[in-house]
């Protein structure tokens, strides 16, 4: 009987786990939808600002805009790591940390690290110095949070504390596949633009408009990177929670089978005991 009691307890705890993983999956699914909707809303802004910037630059170079100018010597590089807000999402965070470590191994220049996301404070801060941590970025990032990050990075770049700013994040390839990759945010890379025209009127002047467009493009790029990283995080969590829920189902099925066996064995023993007892009594009478 002790065996069946233990089995029952294990089944109950497996059921608890199944419920938790199922609801975590549901929560991730709803956050994923919200992140995707935000990405769709941001898309026109990101596209238009980059297109206009390319168009204006195609005329006559960066016009002295510091955000666009490639510095001849890039001595200091700042890495911005976009980790998730928490774990339980498969290899999402650990793959990114591994990617960072490989990257830093090859890095000859002086480098600093900015981390976005509240996961892995112990993992990341134990070994290396983190310049600044943005751990209040929500599961569904908002424009204001992205603006804060982008303002900080712009200031870091303009003050000369970094000559290059590189984002390390999980690119969202599909629901099932995210790939760690690097993206150079600053100096800002303008797209190539074929058709241009020289007869633009500028109000007040070209340089300040290039600056304004560069900031708009920068802000929307930072925002879209944050959203893309979160999109991947929620997808990864959904996938791992789905497989966890499936595994608990399997475990519950196995345990139920074992419980049934144990119960059946107990019943069989009981019956044979009764039968044996009855036989003994009958044998006594004849």
């Amino acid at each position, binding site marked *: 009987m002790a065996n069946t009691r233990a089995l029952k307890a294990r089944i109950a705890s497996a059921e608890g786990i199944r419920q938790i993983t199922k609801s975590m999956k549901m929560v991730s699914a709803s956050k994923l939808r919200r992140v995707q909707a935000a990405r769709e809303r941001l898309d026109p*802004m990101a596209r238009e600002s980059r297109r*206009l910037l390319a168009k204006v630059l195609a005329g006559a170079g960066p016009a002295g805009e510091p955000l666009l100018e490639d510095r001849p010597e890039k001595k200091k590089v700042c890495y911005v790591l976009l980790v998730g807000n928490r774990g339980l999402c498969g290899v999402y965070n650990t793959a990114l940390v591994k990617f960072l470590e490989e990257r830093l191994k090859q890095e000859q220049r002086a480098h600093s690290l900015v981390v976005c996301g509240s996961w892995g404070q112990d993992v990341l801060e134990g070994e290396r110095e983190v310049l600044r941590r943005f751990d209040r970025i929500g599961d569904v990032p908002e424009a204001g949070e992205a603006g804060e990050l982008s303002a900080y990075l712009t200031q870091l770049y303009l003050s000369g504390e970094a000559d290059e700013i590189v984002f390390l994040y999980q690119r969202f390839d599909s629901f099932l596949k995210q790939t760690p990759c690097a993206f150079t945010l600053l100096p800002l890379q303008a797209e190539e633009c074929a058709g241009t025209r020289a007869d633009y009127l*500028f109000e007040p002047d070209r340089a300040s408009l290039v600056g304004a467009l560069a900031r708009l493009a920068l802000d929307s790029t930072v925002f879209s990177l944050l959203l893309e990283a979160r999109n991947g995080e929620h997808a990864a969590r959904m996938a791992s929670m789905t497989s966890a829920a499936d595994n608990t189902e399997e475990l519950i099925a196995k345990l139920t089978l074992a419980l049934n066996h144990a119960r059946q064995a107990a019943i069989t023993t009981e019956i044979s005991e009764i039968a044996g007892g009855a036989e003994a009594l009958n044998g006594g009478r004849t």
Partner: protein
Amino acid sequence: MADKIKLSIVSQEGTALERDVSYVNIPTPFGSLGILSGHAALLCAVEEGTVRFRFGEEEETDRIPVGAGVAHVEDNQVTLLVSWAEKKEP
């Protein structure tokens, strides 16, 4: 109609407005700027304020508050990229 301008107001929260208008008035740091169809290609700073526009046969007017940003005018297409804009259903 030939004298229509396509006006779109875009912020990070999405496209706030997209419609055909006959006249747009944009707030700039140097005062408000009126744009009719056939305007020269222009790139101009936008100040926080109210964009006014006229549309339809009746020349109705409407307005939409926007944040600072940049306006781009080319080929009767006016695009405002702004930090925020109040969303309006067409």
